[in-house]
C-alpha cells in the first residue's frame, strides 16, 4: 500500500491496455461487437462504483442501483429539457453524489451497523423502483420530460460533443468516449486510494475502532467515500441512458444491485481491476449462454457464479495475483537454492 501509484508499473499497464482497447478495438471489431463492448464499459463503471466503496471503504451497499437509476433519470430528464448532454452528464454525477451524501449522513452519523446499511440501501432502491413505476400519467413530467412509469422514458438524446448539440456521437465514438470515462474513473480512483484520504479509508475498512482511536472521524470519511461511489454510479446510469436512448424503472431494480455485487465479488473485492474483469467475464458468459440452446441458460449462469464464488472466494484478480506471486517466489527459490526469502 505504501507504494505510490505513480511508481506502480501495474497502473501504467492497465491504463495502456485501456487506451489500446479504445483505439484498436474499433478498427478490428465489427459494429455489433463494439456496441456490445460499450455495454460492458458502462457496466464496468457501475461495478467500479461499488468496488470502490466496498473494497476501499468497507461499505457494502445492497442498493447501488438506486444511484445508477437516479443518474440515468437525471440525465434523461435534463437532456430532454436542455437539448444537449454535457450539463446533464455533470448533473447525473452531482445529484446522485448529493443524494448519497444525504443518505450517508443518516446512515453513518446515525451509527447504523453494516447490516442495517445494507438493508437501508436496499429499501431505498425498492422505493425508487416503486416510485418510478407509479409515474405513468401525463401529470408526472418534469418540463418536457414525461417520466412514463413502467414504460420508461424513450428518445433520450444521444451524447453530443460539448457545446454542439447537433454533433451526436456515432456508436464508435460513443465507445471511445465511454472507454475514456472508464479510464478516467480508474485513474481518479487509483490516485484517491493512494492518497492520505484513501489510506485512511482503507484503515477504516480494516478497523473502524482503531481509525477513530487515531483521531480520524470515521463517519465523515465513510460519508465522503459513499458519496463518491454514488456519483460514479450515477455517471454510469447516465452512460446507460444515452447508450440505450431509453430508460425504465428496471434501472432501479434489485437485479442491477445484485449483479453489481456479483461482478465485484467474482472479480475481487479490494481491487479496481477485479470489478472490470467481473463485468466482462460474467456479461460475456450471459450473452454466450443466452445464444446457446441450453436447458436453462440462467440456471447454468447461476451455477457458474456459485462455482466462482466457492472456488475463488477472494475473486479472480486476487487469486491470480497470489498464484503469480507464489509462482515467482517458488521459481526464485529454485534458482537460488532455497535462499529467495533471505
Amino acid at each position, binding site marked *: 500500500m505504501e507504494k505510490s501509484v505513480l511508481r506502480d508499473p501495474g497502473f501504467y499497464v492497465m491504463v495502456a491496455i485501456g487506451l489500446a482497447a479504445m483505439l484498436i478495438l474499433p478498427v478490428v471489431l465489427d459494429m455489433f461487437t463494439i456496441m456490445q463492448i460499450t455495454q460492458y464499459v458502462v457496466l464496468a463503471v457501475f461495478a467500479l462504483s461499488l468496488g470502490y466503496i466496498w473494497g476501499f471503504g468497507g461499505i457494502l451497499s445492497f442498493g447501488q442501483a438506486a444511484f445508477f437509476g437516479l443518474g440515468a433519470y437525471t440525465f434523461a430528464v435534463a437532456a430532454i429539457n436542455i437539448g444537449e448532454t454535457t450539463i446533464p452528464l455533470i448533473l447525473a454525477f452531482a445529484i446522485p453524489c448529493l443524494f448519497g451524501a444525504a443518505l450517508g449522513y443518516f446512515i453513518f452519523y446515525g451509527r447504523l451497523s453494516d447490516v442495517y446499511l445494507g438493508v437501508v440501501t436496499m429499501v431505498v432502491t425498492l422505493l425508487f423502483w416503486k416510485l418510478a413505476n407509479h409515474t405513468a400519467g401525463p401529470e408526472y413530467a418534469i418540463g418536457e420530460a414525461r417520466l412514463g412509469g413502467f414504460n420508461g422514458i424513450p428518445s433520450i438524446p444521444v451524447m453530443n460533443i460539448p457545446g454542439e448539440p447537433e454533433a451526436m456521437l456515432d456508436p464508435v465514438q460513443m465507445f471511445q468516449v465511454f472507454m475514456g470515462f472508464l479510464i478516467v474513473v480508474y485513474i481518479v480512483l487509483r490516485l484517491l486510494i493512494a492518497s492520505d484520504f484513501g489510506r485512511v479509508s*482503507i484503515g477504516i475498512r*480494516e478497523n473502524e*475502532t*482503531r481509525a477513530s482511536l*487515531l483521531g480520524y472521524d470515521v463517519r465523515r470519511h465513510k460519508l465522503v467515500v459513499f458519496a463518491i461511489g454514488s456519483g460514479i454510479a450515477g455517471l454510469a446510469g447516465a452512460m446507460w441512458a444515452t447508450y440505450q436512448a431509453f430508460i425504465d424503472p428496471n434501472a432501479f431494480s434489485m437485479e442491477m444491485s445484485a449483479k453489481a455485487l456479483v461482478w465485484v465479488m467474482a472479480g475481487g473485492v479490494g481491487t479496481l481491476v477485479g470489478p472490470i474483469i467481473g463485468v466482462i467475464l460474467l456479461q460475456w458468459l450471459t450473452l454466450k449462454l443466452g445464444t446457446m440452446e441450453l436447458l436453462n441458460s440462467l440456471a447454468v449462469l447461476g451455477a457458474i457464479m456459485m462455482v466462482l464464488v466457492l472456488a475463488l472466494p477472494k475473486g479472480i484478480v486476487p487469486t491470480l495475483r497470489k498464484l503469480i506471486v507464489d509462482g515467482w517466489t517458488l521459481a526464485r527459490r529454485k534458482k537460488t537454492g532455497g535462499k529467495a526469502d533471505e
Partner: protein
Amino acid sequence: MSDWTNILETRGLTMQFGGVTAVDEVDFTLRDGELRCLLGPNGAGKSTFFKCLTGQLIPTRGSVTFKGEDMTGWNTHDIVNLGIGIKTQMPNVFDGVSVYENVRLSSRRKHMAAQAKELAEKTLERCGITHLAKREVGTLSHGQRQLVELAMVLAAEPALILLDEPAAGMTGEERDRLARLVLESARSAAVIVVEHDMVFIRQIAKFVTVFNRGAIFREAMIDEIMADREVQEIYLGKQANVASA
C-alpha cells in the same frame, strides 16, 4: 481551555448497564506527567472506567475533564484529538496493511507527510520493531501486534497515554521492552496503565489505584499496595505473592 491543575479528572463517574453498576461514582485525578497503574480483579470495573475515559462508552452520570475541558460523552476521535493516546485491551490495529503504514497513519494525523514519515520511522525504532516495518500486521504474533499498537499511540505524541492491558500475551523480553518504553514515555506524558500482570506492574508502577466493584478501593504507592493484606488476599490473590517472591 481553562486553567487546570490535574490533566485528567473524573467526578462522580458512573456507568450502569441495566441494573448493574459497573463504575460507581468514581472520583479520580491524575497529575500532569504522572504514571498511574490501575489494578483490580476481573469485573472490578477498570476496563469500563477506561472505556468511559476514551469515549467508547458514554457514562450514565458524572464528568470527565481533560486539561480542564469537560469531554464527557464526546466521540472517541474528538477525545483523541485533544491529545490522548489510547491502546485498547485487544490489539486494535490495521491487520491488512504493513506495520510502517499503521504507524504512519497515526503520525500523519498531526504532521505533514515528510515529518510524519520521519516520526513513524523513529517510533518504529524506539519500539524496536523496525525489522517488522514491511510485514503485514495480520501476520504478526499477539505480542508484536501489541507493540505495533503502542507505536501507533506514541507516534501521535499524546499528552496523556491510556494503556489497557498492554503486556497481555507478550513474551518476557517483549514485556521488559514495553516496561522501558512506558517509563520512557512517562517522561513526556501522563500515563494510565490498566494491567493484571503483576511482574509488569512492579517494573513500572509507583502510585497505584486499586478498583473493586466499580469503585476505587485503595490509592497508594505500589509497595504499600503490595504489602496491604486486604488487597493481596482479596484482589490480587496468589499472583501478588508470586510477584513479590
